[in-house]
């Protein structure tokens, strides 16, 4: 076998691997789409290509009986608040850590590093009892506050890493021209750090949207459910019975989210490597 033939075989093999991988990726996704168009709610009688194509599950989701739209709204409220709040909180913290010397700075950074590894799960009991005591259990506000506090250790590192790459000469020059601390922050740091702040906002928009654990513990009434909890309950009660409905509900959230992700994934990766590795 000469060099050219060998190369051709290699390329063919690579394409074969790519095709197989693509099939493995698409199979469950297409299967879900197929399920959502099946009539009835039983998985037994459902098939990948529906025999009786129907939109009944989609119609049901938007009907009076379902809370789907309320959950959708709750999820958006939580996600948008957490996205905005996290950008404000973490950029303030990261600015202080990147540009100022103060007592306990170094230790605080190590503590952040340690805390970002700890799972929320470890804090669950205490959070549950505490939220109960201050009357924030089963409220979206309580959920939002927990998310906001929990994201700080990780994102503060990320944003601090990025702030560190912005030349200090810029803010020193501005200070000589009479700009105050907040002014430097607002007119120099924030505009220059837009890429990483966009990444933080996106992360914190997506995270509550996908999270199941925390809302399932904090929220208990149907009206306050977020999408993840609500959809899980579709299939949790009687598994096979509502799966097609779950499939329809999932597609309506997965399609917009996936589209946004595919557009922005380049940002996400570059943000992570820029902020993350420089530590």
């Amino acid at each position, binding site marked *: 076998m000469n060099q050219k033939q060998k190369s051709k075989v290699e390329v063919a093999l690579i394409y074969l691997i790519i095709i197989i991988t693509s099939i493995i990726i698409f199979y469950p996704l297409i299967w879900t789409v197929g399920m959502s168009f099946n009539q009835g709610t039983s998985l037994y009688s459902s098939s990948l290509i529906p025999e009786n194509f129907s939109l009944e599950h989609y119609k049901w989701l938007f009907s009076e009986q379902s809370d789907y739209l309320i959950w959708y709204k709750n999820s958006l409220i939580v996600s948008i608040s957490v996205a905005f709040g996290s950008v404000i909180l973490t950029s303030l913290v990261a600015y202080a850590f990147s540009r100022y010397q103060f007592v306990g700075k170094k230790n605080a950074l190590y503590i952040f590093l340690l805390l970002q590894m*700890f799972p929320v799960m*470890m*804090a669950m009991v*205490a959070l549950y009892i*505490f939220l109960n005591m201050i009357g924030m259990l089963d409220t979206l506000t309580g959920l939002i*506050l927990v998310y906001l506090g929990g994201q*700080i250790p990780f994102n503060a590192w990320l944003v601090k890493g990025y702030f560190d790459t912005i030349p200090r000469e810029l803010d020193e020059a501005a200070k000589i021209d009479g700009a105050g601390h907040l002014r430097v922050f607002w007119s120099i740091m924030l505009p220059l750090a837009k890429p990483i702040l966009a990444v933080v906002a996106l992360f914190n928009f997506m995270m509550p949207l996908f999270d199941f654990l925390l809302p399932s513990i904090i929220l208990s009434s149907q009206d306050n459910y977020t999408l993840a909890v609500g959809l899980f309950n579709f299939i949790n009660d009687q598994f096979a019975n509502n799966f097609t409905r779950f499939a329809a509900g999932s597609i309506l959230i997965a399609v917009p989210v996936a589209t946004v992700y595919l557009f922005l994934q*380049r940002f996400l990766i570059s943000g992570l490597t820029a902020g993350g590795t420089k530590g």
Partner: protein
Amino acid sequence: MDHKKDKHKFSNHNPTIATILSILFAGLGQLYNRRFLKGTIFIILELAFLTTLLDSINYGLWGLRTLGTIPGTDHSIRLLVFGVLALIASILLLALYVFNVLDARNQAIKLKDGWKAKGFKDTIIDFYDSAFPYLMTVPGLLLMIFVVIFPLMFSILLAFTNYTLYNSPPRNLVDWVGFQNFIELVSVPIWQDTFISVLAWTIVWTVVATTLQIAVGLFLALIVNDPRIKFKKLIRTIFILPWAVPAFVTILIFSAMFNDDFGAINRDIIIPLLGGDGIPWLSEPFYARTAVILIQTWLGFPFIFALFTGVLQSISKDWYEAADVDGGSRLQKFRFITFPHIMFATAPLLIMQYAQNFNNFNIIYLFNEGGPPVRGQNAGGTDILISWVYKLTFETNNYAMAAVISLIMGLIISGFAFYQFRQTKSFKEEGEL
């Protein structure tokens, strides 16, 4: 020079007196230094503290010590919450007090050396300058204290109590039991068996699932990056899809697909190809474990793929050309150019992947709720430590034991964090890529 020093107004000023005064009562030292405004503020703060907060902190610390004394009236767990909060408050106040003493002392020394205090306005500006970083961090810090630090302290303390479903307030009092829970975990057979098998599976799960997703991601990134391959953009978009779809959705879908009876995997793939009755994916621990590892690989490789693709594109072509000139084989090029580059740029993120899978509650719980059940154990076949903690807490309400296991997890995670810390430190020393 000495002569000059002797002459100024504060030459007899004694830093020790300032220190002692400010220890006696916050603010007195500042008054002695003639910083009247600052001194008054400190005095007012301490008075306010003595009249209002002292009582509740005292009560909190008493509760922390005793966990209540009268069953039915004292709610031990509430007392524990107050106690932890009181502890945090005392630490903060202590820090403030130390700051007050140091401030008085430093200023007295400066005064003695002939430093002239600035006017009122300059003092305010100075204060703003030095307080600014603290002001910036306060909102985030407060939230973190309540949401992260307080709950962690609380669960650590809980591990040393006997708080369970059968011994819970308000009916009963919870007591401190020292290390009894830890001893039970390793000596009572059912706990011992469960703990060892769950721990072993957690380690296997973390290592195998994470390594597999990194290996698959790396392999695919390498072959798609091959210059002979066309449609790169399309292929990359397809390969990132599993990352873009919400994970809780895909896990639940897989859970239905792997269903023993009517799942698509058995019905459409295994039975037509291999015959038989299909594989018991959900009811046999071995198959359930295989299934979660496969699903995690499906879910996790796209992130690694995207990460490595970014790094691969940033490696300069000169390296490879130089290697070609020297007659380097493909394997050598990978080993000495590609691999070091990739690892150098992504090592901390890869370690985070291991930590994330160690804590990957979602996939374990949503796939099969940690099942299938295993005889002689109180955790399921796919339960990892974190999902076991969840079950102990919210299903069997064995809070104390859940806290013990959380604590052990915390220790393991600190190991990860320590390693991560060393990594980032070495990064700093080696400079940036």
